[in-house]
């Protein structure tokens, strides 16, 4: 099923230009059909497998309980296998990937004018690569997909981006590629250490999980992985590619970048760094948490300083992903769950904001908030959504982002109070930049661009409010955010085994009792409240 999913999207990508050539506009429909088919495949999976999941004993922590896996020999010389596997974490992220893929397609339905076929080909290839990243359990294969998803993304930015697209695309690519070469070295070193210990050459995740290595070696290897994922996340000081890439990318590209590509960094930390190097991660945790907390505040401050609306949203991403880093390295269940919820909440809210900003740019031909203002009176429906997602982004209670950030701070507080307090400043910063954005773009006197026609009743030239399609797409995101905000439990349940696995090593190190099942949020909040 997993291989089929990837194959479907990859081959679909190859056909998109042909279909587009045969019938203009066809590439878009083909993409839609393929994404829907992929969603159906994935949802069929949950129907088939989730009942059996509960029956499996959760306490066999060493052997990950995959819902399903495929494993075929690929390069036997190095013990490399084509292994894909699915568990709750992967499933949730795959769902996010496909949902965001659909959302970005619908939100930018008619914005792509140039070389449509090739655009949708790249679009599908990016998604195929990301699906591969989220499911690969062979480290070589993981690296393979990790790189493969970059090329189409590079082309998306470089061909369909805005004015400074080439520089932004190259910067994006060099940052990620150079850091991932470090990861490649770390992967190979890991395999060689395993080979020297056991005489078996393998890149399989499970085999490497159980191998032993000296603390010093583990620390260096962990750093190799960490840098690659921190660049993708992105965390200070590796974030400088992100504002450029986000700003220059076409709208659909920005959505993919923010909603999914950044998540691969967090996924890598959860899936690989923590389980493979539990002790080293413990040692490194204070540094990582500090980086996370600094990212939160720094991102917020820089977001406030932007006059370019897209750049503002981009820096807010840095801030939000800082919470993820903080939560992951706080090493407790609460913060960890917060980090995971943040992945989804940030994905939804930022994707929506990028879609809205992109749409504004498409029609106003500017991203500068100085040239906006008074949008509410001309575009009420769009403005309402901007307001909604902006307050979601600042962490309004009742929406997903609030739950996530609250949990992260709560968990991090138990670990390091000063850092948690410092990071909490970021939430104030978020309130400031989000409200400033809303204030400058939506309210106030209408700017020249917005009210270019003297006729006050009609909309200015080329400016239209949301269509029904866009409205529905955004509404779906908004409702999901509300749902996550009010009832995050289903999401937490689906990722619970992954949390246990990631924290298992840590618990073995500190010899705390292993949490058998994850209690509800409410109970946990109480539990941690009692903790010193």
């Amino acid at each position, binding site marked *: 099923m997993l291989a089929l999913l990837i194959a479907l999207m990859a081959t679909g990508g190859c056909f998109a230009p042909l279909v587009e050539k045969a019938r203009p506009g066809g590439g878009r429909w083909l993409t839609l059909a393929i994404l829907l088919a992929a969603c159906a495949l994935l949802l069929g999976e949950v129907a088939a497998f989730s009942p059996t999941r509960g029956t499996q004993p959760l306490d066999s922590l060493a052997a990950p309980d995959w819902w399903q896996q495929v494993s075929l020999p*690929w*390069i*036997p*010389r*190095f013990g490399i296998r084509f292994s894909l596997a699915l568990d709750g974490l992967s499933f949730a992220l795959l769902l996010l990937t496909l949902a965001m893929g659909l959302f970005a397609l619908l939100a930018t339905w008619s914005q792509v004018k*140039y*070389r449509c076929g090739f655009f949708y080909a790249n679009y599908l290839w990016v998604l195929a690569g990301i699906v591969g990243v989220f499911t690969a359990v062979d480290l070589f294969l993981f*690296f*393979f997909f990790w*790189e*493969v998803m*970059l*090329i189409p993304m*590079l*082309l998306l930015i*470089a*061909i369909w981006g805005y004015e400074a697209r*080439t520089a932004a*695309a*190259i910067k994006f*690519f*060099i940052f990620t*590629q*150079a850091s991932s*070469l*470090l990861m*490649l*070295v770390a992967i*190979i*070193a890991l395999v*060689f250490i395993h080979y020297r210990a056991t005489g078996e050459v393998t890149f399989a995740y499970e085999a490497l999980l159980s191998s032993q290595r000296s603390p010093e070696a583990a620390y260096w290897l962990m750093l190799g992985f960490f840098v690659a994922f921190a660049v993708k996340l992105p965390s200070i000081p590796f974030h400088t590619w992100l504002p450029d890439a986000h700003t220059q990318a076409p709208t659909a590209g920005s959505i993919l970048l923010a909603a999914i590509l950044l998540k691969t960094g967090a996924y890598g930390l959860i899936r690989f760094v923590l389980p493979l190097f539990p002790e080293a991660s413990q040692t490194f945790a204070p540094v990582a948490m500090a980086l996370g907390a600094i990212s939160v505040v720094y991102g917020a401050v820089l977001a406030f300083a932007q006059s370019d609306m897209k750049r503002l949203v981009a820096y807010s991403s840095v801030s939000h992903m800082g919470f993820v880093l903080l939560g992951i390295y706080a090493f407790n269940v609460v913060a960890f769950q917060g980090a995971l919820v943040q992945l989804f909440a940030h994905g939804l809210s930022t994707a929506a904001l990028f879609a809205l900003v992109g749409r504004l740019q498409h029609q106003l031909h500017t991203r500068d908030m100085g040239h906006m203002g008074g949008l509410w009176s001309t575009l009420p429906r769009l403005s309402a959504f901007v307001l909604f997602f902006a307050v979601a982004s600042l962490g309004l209670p009742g929406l997903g982002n609030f739950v996530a950030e609250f949990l992260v701070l709560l968990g991090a507080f138990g670990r390091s109070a000063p850092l948690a307090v410092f990071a909490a400043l970021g939430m104030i910063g978020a309130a400031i930049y989000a409200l400033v954005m809303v204030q400058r773009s939506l309210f106030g006197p209408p700017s020249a661009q917005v009210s270019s026609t003297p006729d006050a009743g009609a909309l200015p030239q080329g400016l239209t409010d949301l269509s029904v399609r866009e409205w529905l797409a955004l509404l779906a995101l908004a409702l999901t955010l509300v749902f996550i905000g009010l009832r995050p439990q289903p999401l937490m349940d689906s990722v619970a085994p992954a949390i246990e696995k990631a924290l298992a090593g840590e618990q073995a190190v500190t010899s705390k009792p292993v949490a058998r099942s994850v209690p509800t949020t409410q109970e946990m909040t109480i539990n941690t409240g009692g903790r010193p």
Partner: protein
Amino acid sequence: MTAMELYAILPLLVLTAGIVLLMLQVAFFRSHNAAMMTTVTVLVTAILACLVVTGELRDTVSSLPATTMLLIDQQALFICVLLLLAAMAVAVLGHSYLRARQVVPSATDHPEAFYILLLLCLLGACTLVCASHFAIFFLALELISLALYPLLAFPLTGRAFQNDERGLAMESAIKYLLLSAIASALGLFGIALVYGATGALEFSAVAAAMSGQNVSAGLMQSGLALVLAAMAFKLSLVPFHLWTPDVYQGAPTPVTALIATVSKAAAVAILLRLMSVSGWSEASIIGSLLTLMAIASIVGGNLLALLQRDIKRLLAYSSIAHIGYLTVAFLINEQTLGGEAALYFLVAYVVTTLGAFAVISLVADNALSNGSTDPGEALAPFHIDYYTGLFWRSPLLGTCLAAMLLSLAGIPLTIGFIGKFYIFAAGVEGELWLVLGAVIVGSALGLFYYLRLLLTLFQRAPMPSVAGSSVLAIPVTGQLLLVLLSLTLLTLGVFPQPLINWLHALYT
């Protein structure tokens, strides 16, 4: 010489006979196409001969000596096949090159000479690969160089070429001649010193004498260092790289491809043999020199490539860096992984470089036959700006060049990635962290110029001013070559196992 020895050098004999045959053919029947057909036939026959000898090797012993001069083993045969295949690609490119310039057989123009020289160069390369004695080693090196001088200066041989092309070719040939002569002299002196120290010229005898006690270490080490310098010249490792960009730029593009692939691959192969058979890996000076040259080549090559606006010069510096990567494989003690890594990287390098030069050559031929006869514009087809929007003008050329560039940059799905993976594996195995650091820095630098070129291909608005840029018509043979090379690149990038098996078998 016994029959068995003659049998062992069958590929070399086929090549020699082919050269004589081609010369006779030209004496009686002047035809460009016929010369090309004969060349390809000779090359195919030589490949078949290689395969026949391989079969013989599998049945009996691991290597066949042919007198003390030559030693045929699996590795040598594998490299020979690679070289011969590369030569076929060069022949196809040469055909297109000569046709585009309307070089027809006449009293003043001799397109057939190109093929004779090509085969001579190949004979030298294949002999070098099989050499097991310093005398034949030197002879073969000289044969390659002697065949390359007229090839580099080929535009001077006829009236059909334009003046600026002749000027560039002259510069390139003279530069190569002078520097190559110096390198040969150094190598010869080094061989003399080695002989002085050990009293032997045969690789295995030198190795035996080296492990003995009564060898003057200073003499021996300086001798080896000088021979290595001569090899480094052929491989254009920093600091012996100075000729590379100018020669690459000035030479006819098919000849550039020949220098970049055949001459370098042969040098890599013989270095590999010297390391294993001749016990070079034990000599301390070789290891430290190679480490220095590898780091210098990787960093220097990539840094200088950043500054280039001419695509041939860019590829020249990038090839310096690539040979630098390859050198990493020589630095490790475990011969199996090192040899495998070196050969896989070499195959990747040859395929990719040929592909890149093929695209460049075909684009330039096309520009020429579209009639941009304006003097001074001969260089324009090699300028990066000429490639703006190539992907939209000619999807085939654009896709192929993009694939080649991605492979050079070492991105997955391409053979270049597996090659780089091998280099990383070798580096980790040998715990060469400093060199690996240089490889990573170099790759990051490399990405910048590869991507800049790649994105130029995809740029939205093609420059309208470029003459004849709207249509790109390329010969069918050229198209076929490109498709074949691209398919090889992808297939071996996604399913590397068959080639790995083959290479692995060479060492077990």
